[in-house]
């Protein structure tokens, strides 16, 4: 039940004075309350938990994290301590 999943805002409307949205979770569509993220706009992604958007998903950070993973190992080779590498620290060959 602690599961919170990314979803994409499709439509936004006021209901009983509450900001609500329909949110798409890769095909499953649910009603989601936006009161905690009132600035969320159509097309934005958010972490949704039991019918509430709790935090906006940040595209920039996601890209940066993935880029960091892509570069793992490469940076070490480039900027790592050459003495340690020469001394045979258990470095695996990276593509």
């Amino acid at each position, binding site marked *: *039940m*602690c*599961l*919170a*999943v*990314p979803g*994409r805002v499709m439509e936004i409307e006021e209901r*009983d004075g*509450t900001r609500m949205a329909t949110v798409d*979770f*890769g095909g499953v569509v*649910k*009603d989601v*309350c936006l*009161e*905690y*993220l*009132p600035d969320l706009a159509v097309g934005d*992604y958010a*972490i949704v*938990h*039991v*019918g*509430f958007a*709790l*935090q906006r*998903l*940040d*595209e920039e*950070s*996601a890209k*940066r*994290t*993935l880029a960091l*993973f*892509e570069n*793992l*190992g490469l940076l070490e080779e480039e900027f790592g301590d050459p003495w340690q590498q020469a001394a045979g*620290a*258990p*470095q*695996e060959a*990276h593509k």
Partner: protein
Amino acid sequence: MKYIEEFQNPELARRLLDDIHTTATRPWALMEVCGGQTHSIIRHGIDQLLPEQVELIHGPGCPVCVTPLEVIDKALEIASRPGVIFCSFGDMLRVPGSGRDLFQVKSEGADVRVVYSPLDALRIAQQNPDRDVVFFGIGFETTAPPNAMTVYQARKLKIRNFSMLVSHVLVPPAIEAIMTSPDCRVQAFLAAGHVCSVMGISEYPPLADRFKVPIVVTGFEPLDILEGVRRAVRQLERGEHTVENAYPRAVRPEGNPAAQTMLQDVFEVTDRAWRGIGVIPHSGWKLSDRYRDYDAEHRFAVGAITTQEPAACRSGEVLQGLLKPHQCEAFGTTCTPRNPLGATMVSSEGACAAYYLYRRLGTPTSSTTAPRETTPVA
């Protein structure tokens, strides 16, 4: 689905694993706090891909598992009353109370309904003005804002036939309790990402300082978990103990201020008994006095309840990371998800159920010094 598939990429998982294998030179014990992470770790076989030296200890972060037996018994008692519609998240249905569970109470004629969101329960109350609708409000800091908003709305819309049985639990006091326990083996924490999406990360630096433990805020996809492990191991190897955010796409340092404001209005801190663990001071939220009229415990004076936990169940040790599920004698024999003896066998976030579901019946293989060729991560 965006933000999911990219974080399950096997090629990147391999890079992260390589890095962890290169970095880890000594044995380290890391605890993932959140049951959602435990589930993901076992499901993707991450624990088996890590180097031998890196052990993941499964923490107490499954709300279904730690909801105190006494509260479950109260829920059962309230649900059995005539005129009550008792609403709950689905995974509470099979959590054993002292004698029965919600599922049984329903089969005995009680009106028990499963809802996706607490707001659904509020809607049921609006549609059934002559019935008493009670929602079972449990969970960590992630679930608390939805529950808080629901109670707030009930009061605002003057829906008087709605109340909530609240038993919220909080992560930072649990970390403190784990670190001060004499049996503690934990050397670093993967903090629960979605709890931090709400609360931010300001509560963690004092804990990292005081106990000299690295705390890495970690997400839930396989790459997120590997990155959490990688950063924790790197800190441990360097003798550092800081708070790092390895889940920045969903966690801002300040959390969600609107949610925090609502939480402060609706809830107040209380001591909470964690099932299998015992009372942890200041580790829970209950409804604040302002919302007393919406408190099911207040509305339904439930008498003194004597609770009884099956003696065979060792979930307390499992929840504190002292015992792996398959080391419990009842595991897979007298205790299965269909017939759970303890709450950790009920929810798929519970360590016992995760082990059972993904067939971890023996000790993890010890031949993982080098990363294997294939990865089940995708």
